[in-house]
């Protein structure tokens, strides 16, 4: 994990303002990201299968009962199969690309199928934290963590597929830090 160079946070009386060398700052792009739990791929598969099963049943029913649709079967079925295969491939790629890291002062989340996007939320900007467990997630003991900022819909991080114990640990850690940030009187130790 990256550490920040010592700052003048608590020594208000001896305020100094040195020139910062940007090369010495911790680099977010070099942080080793944790991958999502492998079981999360199973959940993605279950969700996709349910979706495509429902879609398939609808299409089958249409093909079976509506005479006007029947002649179109020769292109509907190949399209359905291509969609199915490409959806699985895309989600596989997206699953592989997602990763997160918790630093002393911020949370990093990387995702994206084509474009790789990295979002960083500083801890002192987090408004609230949400821990969600879905039906299938509970079976595999996974959870998803959401960090909200005042930046609205776009400025929030949603990390799905973390082992629930890990997610709870992260949540408690973050809540702890938020509390410390809000009450600076309790001594803050950044190297915990």
């Amino acid at each position: 994990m990256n550490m920040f160079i010592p700052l003048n946070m608590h020594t208000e009386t001896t305020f100094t303002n040195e020139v910062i060398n940007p090369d010495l700052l911790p680099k977010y792009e070099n942080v080793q990201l944790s991958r999502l739990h492998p079981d999360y791929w199973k959940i993605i598969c279950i969700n996709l299968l349910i979706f495509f099963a429902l879609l398939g049943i609808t299409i089958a029913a249409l093909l079976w009962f509506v005479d006007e649709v029947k002649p179109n079967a020769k292109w509907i079925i190949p399209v359905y199969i291509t969609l199915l295969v490409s959806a699985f491939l895309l989600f596989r790629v997206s699953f592989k690309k997602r990763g997160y890291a918790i630093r002393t002062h911020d949370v990093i989340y990387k995702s994206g199928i084509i474009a790789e996007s990295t979002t960083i939320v500083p801890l002192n900007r987090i408004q609230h934290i949400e821990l969600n467990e879905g039906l299938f997630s509970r079976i595999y003991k996974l959870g998803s963590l959401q960090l909200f900022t005042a930046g609205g819909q776009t400025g929030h991080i949603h990390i799905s597929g973390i082992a629930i114990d890990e997610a709870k640990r992260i949540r408690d850690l973050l809540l702890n830090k938020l509390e410390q940030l809000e009450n600076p009187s309790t001594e803050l130790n950044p190297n915990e």
Partner: protein
Amino acid sequence: MNNDFSKPQRESAFGIIIMGAHTMLKIGKATFFLFVIAFVKMSGSSFTFLMLGIAAIIVFSLIFAYLWYLKFTFFLDKEKQEFVVNKGILNRDQVIIQLDKIQQVNINQNILQKMIGVYGLKIDTAGAHGEEVSIKAIDEISAYILKEHLLNGENTTITQREVEQDNDKAAAAPFLKLSSWTLLKVGLTSNYGQSLALLVAFFYTVIYEGRQLLDAFKIDKDEIQSTVTGMLTIVTVFILIACLLILLLIINLIRTSYKYFELEISEHSNTLLLSSGLIAKKNTLVSPDKVQITTYSQNYFQKKLNMLNMSLKQAHFGQSKKGHEMQGNTLEIPGCNAGERDELLKMILAKVPLKEKTFIPDWRFLNLPIFFKMVLPVSIFLIMAFNIPELKPYMSAAILYVMIGVFMIYISYRRHRISVSQDFIIKTSGIWDIANEIVVPNKIQAITTFQYPWHKGVDVGHLTLHTAAGQIHFKHGNYTEIKQLVNYWLYQVESRNENWM
């Protein structure tokens, strides 16, 4: 009315009239065309029914307003630092606002309120749903004292006299005042888009409602249509367009002067006081450190006239109702000159930001817009034109479209840049109106960087800064530089732990 607001109290009794009129206006607006149609179609005997209907609406509005007045109470909870409003006729609603979450307090006066001599007070919050409280009738002194309490929280032991003195001071030294001449210039040079939208909306309603009226009058529509098409020659079309343009300018002028008449900005015990308005006077109070994005913009005409438009964006939360809420949280200050702009910037940002280190986008910035806005639509058009003979004469229009389009995209590329100094981030963009958005690194909520795989080799990437008042994008920059900037901003945000609101 006692002046420390510690006990629950009702608004001024005149509020019944204001609320009643408000309800009547609402019902009236909704049923206006219904009444017109009824008026046209009805026979003599039903006139009494119509009058009865109107009377019923009036009585209903007044009863509603009276009940509203009875149930609407508000008070300040000094211990918890909260402002509490109880309201609701049938259901009981309680709105609790934490004082430090209040963004701005508006003290307004519409015509009716002016006649009666009361003020309306509105509170904009940064609450999760952007809910706001509006007190419809309150006398002037109470309004200003309440405002003082709301915006300054703890340290308020202001007596009546002090407030009056404050008002005098504010009236004495506005540091920006918009003259009618400047207002004229503003009206001629800005906000064409909004006026155009207004005009279109107006014509749409006129045509839509006009049709219903025609149906009601049983007038032959075909006859009108044939006369209209008969009038349409090339000359008349040009005259019509010219008339529309002049109309647009006039609407723009009226709108601007209605909104910004006698605009004054003054500093008022560490808050900005903006007051303007022709018929309805609007006073807005903002504390400068709650402004998230400060923008100043200028187009070619305005540059020649040495004036700028400024806007101060504050935090908006929750679902914005199609731009409504966002507009409510953006304060527009048109017609400043460079000196006044610097004065305002100094007030809000403590000093005038300088563009120190400027980053420009890569030429690949041009690729996507040229492909999606030029190549794709033009090729679709050309394919259609070659197959449909009716479209062929218009093919030269495609060339014109491409020429103008490419030129505009090139200008937007030349203007798109971001300047960074230790204390400020300035994003410049625009084609006609060149806008400079200024953000203090401290107001950043989150940062996103992203890169397309085919840009990896050439080291080009994108940057988005999320603030509580919207995003700032910088596209197709040098990715190594962007990453360095992000690390620097993160350091700034995380090391200081300053309040962003």
